[in-house]
C-alpha cells in the first residue's frame, strides 16, 4: 500500500534475508491479493536475525537520513480501514545519515523476541508480523521494504481436558446424549465420541458435525462477529431408533484450523465450536453447539 508513496521508480532495491533462511521452515501464507507465498516460520522467544541489502540502481546514489529496520507485530481490522495497531515494535538503526553509492549490506538481530500472538488471517482481522526497512530521506519520502514472516506458538498438553457430555432434546420429540472425548484438541487431533439416541420421534435425514469458527473483533458496541463453518462432516444417514448409538470420529487434520485465540490484545477473539446438526425429512435443523478449545501442539519432525 505504501508503494503509493513512491510515485516514481525507487532509486534502489532493498532485500531482506534471514540468517537461517535456507534451513528455516517455510509455510504458505495467503497474501492480500489472494496469492500464496512461502514465508519463514518463527515462534516466540526466537532470535530473528538477518541481513538487509541495499543496492542502488546503476549510477544512482541514494541519499538518506538514516536506515532502520523494525520488527512489527500488527493487528489490522478490515472494517477499520488501514488502521494498524502495533502491539510489538522493535527498532534497529542500521546506518547514520549519508549516501549509498553501491551495494551495501547491514546485518541485524532482534534477540529473543517476545511474540505472544500467532499470525492470524481472518475474515475481519489480521494479525501479522513484519520486518520493515526504512530508508529515511529528507525529500521525496522514505523508501520502505517489508518482509513478512509467520509466527506459530506451541502450547503444552493441557493439564485438564475433560470430555464434553451433554443430554439435550426437544420434549417428546428428540432426546439425545452426546459425548466428545475431550474439550481441548490440538490441530491434528481426532474428535472421538458418540451420539446416543434416547428418544426419536422425528424422521431424520442425516446428522452432521460441523466445526465452526467464531471471530469477534472490536469491543463494546463496535463488536463484529463473523462465523464460518469450516467443516461439515456427516455422521449419520437415515433415522436411528431409540437406543442407537452413533460413533463420531472426526480427523481435524484436513481442515484449515488455527488455535483458539482469546481476547488478543483486546482486539479480537477466535473461538471454535462443534455444532451437532440433525436434519429431519422436512429439512428442519436441530442443533447444539459446544465450544472446543484448539491448541497447537509441537509437531514432531515427521509430519
Amino acid at each position, binding site marked *: 500500500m505504501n508503494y503509493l508513496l513512491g510515485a516514481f521508480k525507487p532509486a534502489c532495491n532493498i532485500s531482506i534475508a534471514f540468517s537461517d533462511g535456507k534451513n528455516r521452515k517455510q509455510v504458505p501464507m495467503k497474501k492480500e491479493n489472494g496469492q500464496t507465498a512461502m514465508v519463514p516460520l518463527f515462534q516466540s522467544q526466537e532470535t530473528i536475525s538477518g541481513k538487509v541489502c541495499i543496492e542502488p540502481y546503476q549510477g544512482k546514489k541514494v541519499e538518506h537520513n538514516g536506515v532502520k529496520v523494525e520488527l512489527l507485530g500488527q493487528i489490522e481490522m478490515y472494517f477499520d480501514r488501514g488502521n494498524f495497531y502495533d502491539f510489538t515494535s522493535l527498532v534497529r538503526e542500521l546506518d547514520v545519515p549519508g549516501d549509498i553509492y553501491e551495494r551495501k549490506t547491514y546485518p541485524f538481530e532482534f534477540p529473543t523476541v517476545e511474540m505472544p500472538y500467532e499470525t492470524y488471517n481472518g475474515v475481519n482481522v489480521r494479525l501479522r508480523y513484519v520486518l520493515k526497512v526504512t530508508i529515511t530521506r529528507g525529500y521525496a519520502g522514505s523508501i520502505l521494504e517489508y518482509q513478512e514472516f509467520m509466527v506459530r506458538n506451541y502450547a503444552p498438553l493441557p493439564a485438564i481436558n475433560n470430555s464434553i457430555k451433554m443430554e439435550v432434546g426437544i420434549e417428546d420429540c428428540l432426546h439425545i446424549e452426546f459425548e466428545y472425548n475431550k474439550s481441548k484438541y490440538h490441530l491434528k487431533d481426532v474428535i472421538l465420541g458418540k451420539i446416543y439416541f434416547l428418544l426419536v420421534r422425528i424422521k431424520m435425514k442425516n446428522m452432521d458435525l460441523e466445526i465452526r469458527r467464531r471471530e469477534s473483533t472490536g469491543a463494546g458496541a463496535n463488536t463484529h462477529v463473523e462465523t464460518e463453518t469450516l*467443516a461439515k462432516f*456427516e455422521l*449419520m*444417514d*437415515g*433415522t436411528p431408533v431409540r437406543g442407537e448409538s*452413533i*460413533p463420531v470420529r472426526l*480427523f481435524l487434520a*484436513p481442515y484449515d484450523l488455527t488455535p483458539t485465540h482469546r481476547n488478543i490484545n483486546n482486539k479480537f477473539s477466535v473461538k471454535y465450536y462443534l455444532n451437532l446438526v440433525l436434519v429431519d425429512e422436512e429439512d428442519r435443523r436441530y442443533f447444539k453447539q459446544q465450544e472446543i478449545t484448539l491448541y497447537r501442539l509441537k509437531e514432531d519432525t515427521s509430519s
Partner: protein
Amino acid sequence: MRAFDQLRQLEIFFRDESRHGLPVVDLYELVQHAGNILPRMYLLCTVGSVYIKSKQAPSKDVLKDLVEMCRGVQHPIRGLFLRSYLAQVSRDKLPEIGSDYEGDANTVMDAVEFVLQNFTEMNKLWVRMQHQGPGTVREKQEKERNELRDLVGKNLHVLGQIEGVDLEMYKETVLPRVLEQVVNCKDELAQYYLMECIIQVFPDEYHLQTLETLLAACTQLMPTVDTKIVLTQLMDRLSNYAASSPDVLHEFLQVEAFAKLSNAIGKVIDTQLEMPIVGAMTLFVSLLTFTLRVHPDRLDYVDQVLGACVVKLSSVPKLEDARAMKQVVALLSAPLEKYSDIVTALTLSNYPRVMDHLDDGTNKVMAMLIIQSIMKNDSCISTADKVEVLFELIKGLIKDLDGTDIEELDEEDFQEEQNSVARLIHMLDNEEPEEMLKIICVVRKHLMTGGSRRLPFTVPPLVFSALRLVRQLEAQGGDIAGEDDPATPRKIFQILNQTIEVLSSVPCPELALRLYLQCAEAASDCDLEPVAYEFFTQAFILYEEEIADSKAQVTAIHLIVGTLQRINVFGVENRDTLTHKATGYSARLLKKPDQCRAVYACSHLFWVDDLDGIRDGERALLCLKRALRIANAAQQMANATRGSSGPVTLFVEILNKYIYFYEKGNPHITPSDIQSLIELINTEMQSDNGNTTIHSDPFFTSTLRYIRFQKQKGGLMGDKYDLIKL
C-alpha cells in the same frame, strides 16, 4: 452389486498404492476425511480390507472398528447394502481357525463376534425398513424387504461357515445371541425368515444339542409368525438327520428330543389360538414323522402324538377345511407306511379317535388306505380285539354314517369300497379256531350294521370265511372238541344261518340261496344232517317265496340240484323229500325247454356216481322219460305256435343223458331205449325239413360218432355199446 465390483477394483488400487509407499494406516485415516458418510464408509471398508490383508494391524481391531463405524449409516436400505458389502469384503479375512488371520490375539471368537454384531445391526435395519414411509406403500415395502432378506441371511450363512465354531461356542454364544436378536426384533417377516435360516444354516447335530433353546425361542415368536413351518422344517431336518445314520440315534435319546419337541408344539398350539387347525395338523404330522424316524420302537410316543391331536381336534367343532383334512390323512397314513403292518397301528388307542374327527368322505378314504395297506403288506390280523379295533376304524365303509346322502355316492366307488372290505375279511385269519370264531362274530356284528346296500358285498366273504373255519375244524376232526368248546361247526352254522337270513331279507335272494347251498354242502361234509336239511329248507323257501324271475329260477334249480346231488349226508326220508321237491320245482318251470332241462338234471339226483351213492335207476329213468315227454310237448307247442319244431336239441341232450346212465350201468336203461330215442330224433329231424339241422346236427352227429367209437373200441364198454344198433 456392480458397485461392489467397482469397489473391488478400488480395493486393488488401494493395495497398489500402499505398495507404492503410502502406508495403509495413513490411507485408512485419509479415507475418513471424506465428509459424506456413505462414500466414507464404503471407502473405509475397502481400505479396511486392504489393511487387514496387509497384516499391519490385528484383524479383529480393524473389523471391530469397521462394524462399529458402520453404525453411522442408519438408513435401512443403504445401511443394509453397506453392511452386506462389509460382510463381503471381510468374508475371507475373518480370523477363523485355519485362516491366515488367526493367531495371537485374533481368535475365532472375534470372527464370531464380528459377524454377530454385523448381523444384529443388519437385522435391526432390516426390521426398521417397514416402519418407514407412509402406510400406503406398506405392501411395496414388504416386497422390498423380502428381496433384501438374503443380505441379512448371508451373515448367518457366514456364521455357519466359520471354521472353528464348535458346539460349545455355538451353544454358549452364537445361538443365544442370534435368537435373542430374532426374538427381540418382534417382526414377523424377520422372525420367520431368520428361524428358517438358523435351521438351514447350522448343522443338524448342533440343533439337536440346542433343541431346548431353539424351541424356547420358537414359542416366543410373534403370534403371527408361521411357527408351524419353522418347526416343521426343524423336525424334517432332524428326522432326515436321524435317518441318515443310525449312529446318531442315541444322541436323540440323550437329549430327549421327542419330549422337547412335543412340549414345544403343545405350547405353540396353545399360545397361538388363531392358528388354523390345518397348521396344528401339519405340526403333528411333522412330529409324527420325526417320531417314526427316530423312535420307531416307541409306539407310546406315536400314540401320544395322536392323543394330542385328538385333544386339539375335539376343541374345534368339526373339520371343514379340506387342507386340514388332508393333513390328518397324512397323519394317519404315516404310521401305516412306517410299520407296514396294520397290527401296530391297531394298538394305538388314539388312532380311531383321530379318525372320528374326519368327515365321512375322508374317513372312507382313510379306511381305504388302511385296507390297501393291509392288502399290500399281506398282513394278517389274528385276534378278535384287533379286528374289533380295525372295524371300528373302517366303520365309514362298513355302515352308513349319519347324514350321508346315499345318492351322492358314486356307484363305482361304492362297489370298490365294498370289494375292499370283502377282501379285507379274507385277510382275517387265525389258526386257532376259537379265536377265529370270535373274529367272525366280531366281523359279523359290524357287517350287520351295514344296511342293505352293503350286505350283498360283505356277507359272502364272511360266510366263506366261516366255512373255511368249518372245514378246518372238520379236518382237525371236529369230534375232539367237547361241548364246551365254543367253536363247533354246529355253532358256526347257527351263526351262518342267521347271517344269511339277514341277507335274504335285504332282499338278495339269489345270493342268499347260493350261500345256503354252500352252507348245506359244508354241513353235509360235517355230517350234520339236520343242519344241512335246515339250510336246504331255507333255500327252498327262498326259492318259493323270493325268486320270481324265471331265469333266476332256472339257475336256482340247477344250483339246488347240483348241490343236492353232491350231498350225501341225508337219510332216505329227508333225501326223498328234498329230491321230490326239487323235481317238483323243475317240472313247474315256466318254459318247456327249461322244464325239460331241469328235469333231466334231476335224474342225477337219483343216480350218484359215487361208491356209496344212491343208485335209483328207476327213478332216474322216470325223470328222463318225463323230460322226454316235456320235450315232446315243447316241440308240439313250437309247432303249433311257430309252425316249426325247434328243440331237437332237447332230444339230443336227453339222448346224451340216456347214454350217460347207460354207460354208468343203470339197469333200467336198455339199449333199445337209446335206439328208439335215436330213431325218434331222426324222424323228428326229417319231418323238420332240416330247419334245425343247423343246430342239432353237429351235436347229434357227434353223439352218434361217440357211440360208434365206443363200439369200435371194444372191451367192456364196447360190448355194452354193441347192443345199440344204429
